[in-house]
């Protein structure tokens, strides 16, 4: 009897409208009209057949309106309803949908719905998701449902089908479910014991609190968000080079852990930079806007790339927060939802103020970036530096401009040889990012008593210097040639002359010192290797010390950046350092020609190498000439002229040396501290246009910032709406979409599927909610509780609906295969990251460290190499060693064009597009990965080692192991199976000790050598089995 009733119900679900049920436009009719009619009779005014729209009733073009006496729909009158006549017409030329739409005829069930809807009065409703959210009162509590509001809604729906909530899952199973869901890691046997032992009421709630407070919670919840916003560690297009934006990833983790309210979470990501006096973390959050796919492909066309970047931002923001398929309106008005093409580009206009340039320059840190110091004092210093440097740079440029204005033009460069002198230090020395922390005791003096070799000041060094002193050329790279002579002037104190002085070239190569005076003065090692250049020059006057880099061991053609001075005892004045350079070709000399200079840096700028220039300049260097805009060309030219160009050095020294130490300090921080891509707003945004037919080269009417008119109005604080206004609009309580979309995503995460099963489409073409009232209640509750995410998660996991047993009876499976009714607990395969982390945790290998640069764990050879561009810095995968192999998967380096196989095999997205819900495939490739991937197998071996070191009894070990993976005690049958399995492998490896040795040698960590080898190998196979159990791979 029961079966019979359930079979009837099955039909009801399949064709959802029972005969007696009244027809709802939103639930029953809209999906049919949307899918079959709206493309030509919907919101797209540009493509509306017969001036008829069927998404609306009462406008002149609406379904009720009369056209020459014909009305598409006449409520309660099928005969007069043209729509009805058309869908049942047997004639091809009348039939709707028409043949050329390639839509099949409506199915009988669909026709029946339309029929009954018209008969019942053809009542239209506004699309449910665009209606304001009211908080409906939860239905009355049913006896078995308890008082939890979620359960009252769920039970109410179940009751209409004579069903009820299932019994609660066994406690161990529930604990594993909850622990995996909230932290992405399995519970330990100790945690299971503690939970089972806690007989007092509220035990479950206490576990929820413990897990919500765990830092693992934030890591786990961040993952879903990072999928949504397509976070990755490479640019995604063409070279797919490294992009450094991981501090944003860490910000997301922290935001979940400190329970940043979701509205604030939203505002800081979209527009943290526009908040008053934004903190560093609020700037880091704006990395959201920088997660776009980007390119610097040589032939790419700027307008096209710019349009794509903006579209990527609009489409992602619309999908993630609003559940709108906005991109449908890029070429024409949206055909299903009321978003016009104009409104699409108005949304885009809001992002047109972002300062980052269209190209990524193939560098890891295209501006704007933030340096993340980690401590407030240093952070403040970094801010101060920026503030101090800007005016000094301005002064320097102004001075150089005045030189030009005064008639001192730049040299005309030819291919002919040239000899010239360049002075690095006249009245002060230059500090480079490397020497930044190593300032010696020497001091520049000026005044009538100071002897100078040039300029107005000289450097006094007294006594032996603990650290050498540097005369550097700033960031000028000098090329060693036999005809290049470097020099410095020395004036030994007549009263207390040094015992010796030495000069050394600063170079990556191993060089020899030149020593003047007592060769033994710097110790025997140096004496053995140094070149004795001569006696100490006579004190009391300047001597020019000259030396050639090639003589010191810098190979011809290699680079050096200056001289390192050492002095033994005594006192001396040092002054006027530089070089006399003979170049074979003036126009190829980087110190004279900006083009030659830029050429030498172009490739290195793209590499991940440390280049002693600031990121903004490095960026310009990374661009091809055609990619640089006028401003960038000028910046490059000015930089070369002001900082490098030899003929100007002497006259610009004061201004250059004023800014250089600060710049060096700034570059030093950029090179040594984490940096991350952030957002900043241009003073004047780029113009936004409607792009005709979505073509990048057909800009139409110009538009300003705006949002779709069918949603509440966008309020702007200033004259023009900004990203901050948009962010506030998104999380305004009256916005009908954000809360619905967000609670649905959390529901989906915990229940395996959303109440709306199309999480990125809440529009007309999306699925309607399975529990509309529940969705609205949850959305309203989320807003009412201040967008408190932890509170919301707590609300869901404490429901009986969540805690149900997952057993699916055959009847229920037939009735409701995808568990839309929630008459049983959710059961689904764990995500890629959780599978790997779980194995590492069970093996005791998992490293607890939170955050930091991405790591490169095991990856089979030949994943990156066969696909990557020859010049890409992610061409070759170099695996990390040690602890980095065992970090949580969240920290695995994400290369968009070839993500880790351990991820994509298990449905992780490529992070090329927003992804608000992963698929869950079930493939043989997954089986192979779980059985054979070294990460999994090493974890099994380490797991076995833990068991062997624990106790000596097989039964105890097996029970403990089984409990570790499933959280429950094995049944009798399972115990027998476990023992049999162990016996099989034991007998095999006792006979094959060499194979057993090999088993233990898998993976980089060393197996415990004190354990008996065959036994260890046999247990490894047992744990390999346990890590592959269906029950282990699922949260049950």
């Amino acid at each position, binding site marked *: 009897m029961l079966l019979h009733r359930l079979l009837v119900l099955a039909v009801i679900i399949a064709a959802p409208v029972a005969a007696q049920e009244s027809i709802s436009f939103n639930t029953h009719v809209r999906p049919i009209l949307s899918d079959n009619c709206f493309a030509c009779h919907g919101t797209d005014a540009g493509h509306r057949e017969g001036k008829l729209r069927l998404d609306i009733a009462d406008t002149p073009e609406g379904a009720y309106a009369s056209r020459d006496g014909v009305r598409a729909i006449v409520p309660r009158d099928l005969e007069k309803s043209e729509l009805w006549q058309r869908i049942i017409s047997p004639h091809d030329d009348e039939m709707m949908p028409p043949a050329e739409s390639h839509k099949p005829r409506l199915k009988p069930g669909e026709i029946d719905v339309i029929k009954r809807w018209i008969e019942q009065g053809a009542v239209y409703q506004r699309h449910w998701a665009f209606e304001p959210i009211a908080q409906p009162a939860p239905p009355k509590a049913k006896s078995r449902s308890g008082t939890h509001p979620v359960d009252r809604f769920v039970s109410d729906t179940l009751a209409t089908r004579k069903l009820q909530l299932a019994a609660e899952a066994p406690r161990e199973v529930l604990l594993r479910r909850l622990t995996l869901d909230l932290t992405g890691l399995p519970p330990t046997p100790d945690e299971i014991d503690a939970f089972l032992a806690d007989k007092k009421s509220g035990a479950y709630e206490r576990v929820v609190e413990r897990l919500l407070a765990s830092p693992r919670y934030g890591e786990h919840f961040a993952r879903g968000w990072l999928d949504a916003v397509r976070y990755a560690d490479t640019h995604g297009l063409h070279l797919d080079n490294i992009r450094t934006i991981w501090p944003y990833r860490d910000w997301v983790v922290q935001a979940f852990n400190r329970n940043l309210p979701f509205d604030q979470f939203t505002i800081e990501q979209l527009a943290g930079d526009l908040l008053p006096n934004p903190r560093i973390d609020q700037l880091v959050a704006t990395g959201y806007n920088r997660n776009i796919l980007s390119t610097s492909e040589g032939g790419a066309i700027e307008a096209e790339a710019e349009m794509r970047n903006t579209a990527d931002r609009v489409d992602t923001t619309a999908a993630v927060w609003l559940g709108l398929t906005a991109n449908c309106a890029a070429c024409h008005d949206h055909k299903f939802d009321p978003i016009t093409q104009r409104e699409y580009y108005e949304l885009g206009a809001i992002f047109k103020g972002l300062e980052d340039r269209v190209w990524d320059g193939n560098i890891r840190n295209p501006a704007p970036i933030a340096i993340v110091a980690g401590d407030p004092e240093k952070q403040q210093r970094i801010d101060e530096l920026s503030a101090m440097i800007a005016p000094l740079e301005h002064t320097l440029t102004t001075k150089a401009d005045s030189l030009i204005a005064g008639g001192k033009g730049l040299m005309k460069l030819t291919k002919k040889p040239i000899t010239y002198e360049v002075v690095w230090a006249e009245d002060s020395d230059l500090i480079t990012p490397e020497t930044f922390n190593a300032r010696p005791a020497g001091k520049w003096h000026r005044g009538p008593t100071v002897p100078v070799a040039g300029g107005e000041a000289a450097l006094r060094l007294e006594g032996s210097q603990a650290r050498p002193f540097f005369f550097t050329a700033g960031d000028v790279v000098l090329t060693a040639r036999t005809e290049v002579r470097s020099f410095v002037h020395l004036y030994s104190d007549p009263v207390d002359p040094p015992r010796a002085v030495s000069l050394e070239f600063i170079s990556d190569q191993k060089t020899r010192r030149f020593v003047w005076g007592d060769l033994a003065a710097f110790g025997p090692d140096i004496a053995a290797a140094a070149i004795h250049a001569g006696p100490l020059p006579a004190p009391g006057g300047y001597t020019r010390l000259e030396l050639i880099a090639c003589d010191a061991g810098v190979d011809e053609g290699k680079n050096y950046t200056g001289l390192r001075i050492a002095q033994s005892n005594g006192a001396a004045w040092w002054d006027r350092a530089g070089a006399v350079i003979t170049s074979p070709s003036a126009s190829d000399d980087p110190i004279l020609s900006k083009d030659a200079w830029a050429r030498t840096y172009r490739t290195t700028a793209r590499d991940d190498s440390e280049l002693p220039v600031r990121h903004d300049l490095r960026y310009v260097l990374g661009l091809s000439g055609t990619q640089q805009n006028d401003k960038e060309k000028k910046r490059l030219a000015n930089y070369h002229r002001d900082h490098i160009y030899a003929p100007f050095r002497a006259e610009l020294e004061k201004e250059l040396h004023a800014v250089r130490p600060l710049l060096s300090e700034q570059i030093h921080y950029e090179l040594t501290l984490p940096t991350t891509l952030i957002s900043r707003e241009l003073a004047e945004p780029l113009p936004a246009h409607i792009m005709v037919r979505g073509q990048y080269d057909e800009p139409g009417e110009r538009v300003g910032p705006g949002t779709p008119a069918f949603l509440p109005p966008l309020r702007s604080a200033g004259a023009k709406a900004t990203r901050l206004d948009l962010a506030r609009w998104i999380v305004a309580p009256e916005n009908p979409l954000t809360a619905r979309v967000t609670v649905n995503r959390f529901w989906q995460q915990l229940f395996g599927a959303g109440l709306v099963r199309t999480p990125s489409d809440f529009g007309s073409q999306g699925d309607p909610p399975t529990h509309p009232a529940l969705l609205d209640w949850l959305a309203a509750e989320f807003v009412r509780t201040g967008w408190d995410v932890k509170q919301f998660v707590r609300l869901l996991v404490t429901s009986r609906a969540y805690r149900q047993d997952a057993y699916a009876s055959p009847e229920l*499976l037939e009735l409701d295969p995808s568990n839309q009714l929630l008459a049983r607990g959710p059961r689904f395969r764990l995500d890629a990251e959780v599978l790997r982390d779980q194995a590492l945790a069970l093996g005791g290998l998992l490293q607890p460290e939170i955050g930091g640069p991405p790591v490169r764990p095991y990856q089979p050879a030949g994943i990156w190499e066969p*696909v990557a561009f020859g010049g890409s810095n992610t061409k070759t995968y170099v695996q990390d060693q040690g602890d980095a192999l065992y970090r949580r998967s969240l920290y695995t380096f994400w290369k968009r064009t070839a993500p880790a196989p351990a991820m994509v095999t298990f449905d992780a997205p490529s992070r090329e597009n927003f992804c608000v819900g992963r698929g869950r495939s079930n493939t043989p490739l997954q089986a192979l990965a779980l059985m054979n991937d070294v990460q999994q197998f090493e974890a099994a071996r380490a797991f076995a080692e833990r068991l062997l070191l624990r106790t000596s009894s097989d039964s105890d070990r097996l029970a403990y192991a089984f409990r570790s993976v499933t959280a429950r005690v094995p049944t009798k049958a399972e115990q027998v199976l476990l023992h049999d399995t162990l016996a099989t492998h034991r007998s095999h490896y006792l006979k094959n000790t060499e194979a057993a040795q090999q088993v233990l040698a898998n993976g980089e960590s060393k197996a415990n050598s004190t354990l008996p080898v065959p036994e260890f190998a046999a247990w490894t196979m047992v744990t390999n089995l346990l890590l592959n159990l269906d029950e282990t791979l699922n949260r049950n």
Partner: protein
Amino acid sequence: MNPAHDYINNLTRRQFFAGAGLAMGGVALNWLAPRLQAAGGTGVGADALNARIHPPLAGFPHFAPTAKRIIYLHMNGGPSQLDTFDYKPQLQERFDQDLPDSIRQGQRITTMTSGQARFPVAPSLFNFAQHGQSGTWVSDLLPWTSKIVDDIAVVRSVHTNAINHDPACTFLMTGSEIPGKASLGSWLSYGLGSENNDLPAFVVLTPKFSPKVAAQALFTRMWSSGFLPTSHSGVALRAQTDPVLFLENPNGVDPTTRRAMLDSLSKFNHLTHARHNDPETLTRIAQYEMAFRMQTSVPELTDFSGESEATLDLYGPEVKESGSFTASCLLARRLVERNVRVVQILHRGWDQHGNLPNDHRIQCLDTDRGCYALIADLKQRGLLDDTLVVWAGEFGRTVYSQGALTKTNYGRDHHPRCFSVWMAGGGVKGGLVYGETDDFSYNIIRDPVSLHDLNATLLHCLGIDHQKFSFKSQGLDQRLTGVEPARVVKEILT
């Protein structure tokens, strides 16, 4: 004894197919509903021997196909049509003359050459001759391909929307420049399923190529499933120790041990199924068994030792070099022989902005003989009749020289407005040349074929009406051929 074969032999039909059938029933997501029907309701087929783990969608193919499988030879980087198939003898007289504005018509060009002061015409340095009964013109860069011209149809009038590699490759393979759409192979796997229960339906090969300064990149999105279920993603068969990722057991684990572990696993998982009654558990049991079968079937697939001397001679010496393009061609034949639905070979290095004569020669040395041997081999085995072979880059190259033009050297920039593609077998007319470009191979003057047209044609050969082949994603009926009208190029079909 091979434990894998033992195991399969020992499986009763009932066990095996009940498992597979229930597995299908179990994956009860909406997208699988039509598949269920095709699998015969509950999936327990009347004739167990013909049961397929991955059957086609209900109603597929739409009509009798002329091709059951496809081999797609992608020449990544953009081969020059001017130096291979699109013979323009008149250009010799125009050496170093400026490309007439009447030809360029202000069309966009990439930013690599948009700054050039001149667009000097660079006639091909290669000699063309007519070959075969058809008299198809082919340059002497392709002596081996010249021998099969009567089996192939050269389409000289293909055009694309994208002008740079990344979007052009994405467009070629997924029908859209924007990442995120499903690839051609994934569409076919989804629609037509697999006729081999031991190998993936869609296999990708990325052979070695002779080194160039900077070869363009490939992207996994070129074979990924996009919005389709990920099980339809292409599986890259690698020339490394593990042809399929994680195929090999860990060191110290032999097939017997793996079998023993799987026997235990299956028992545990059946208990789990009893506990939760989740159909996915049965699917998982079946997938572990397929994984085990792949451990045998894949090494057997990649082992060429059974190939006759005559066959190896047909392919030439490079076939013995693992991971070469030629070896990939033989592997492709072995794959289609096993009824693998889609084989995609992506050969890189064709992006000659400079030094084209020399580097294109090297590219052709890599690939020419393999293409010839593949067609000849398929033909001699009767496989060419129902196997479609396609040879295509993502775009063509410009008639004008990028950088310096000399009597012996030139480069060519990207040219999306026309390029040459050839197809063979599976319903394609051999010995045909279709479409025509102007005297500069710059614009198409007759019978243009868009990439959407090309894809519509490929689908047609495989028995699919491209307009009826859609998947709902993001509120839209997504199609490989997009929303603009596309046409099956029936003129090149038998």
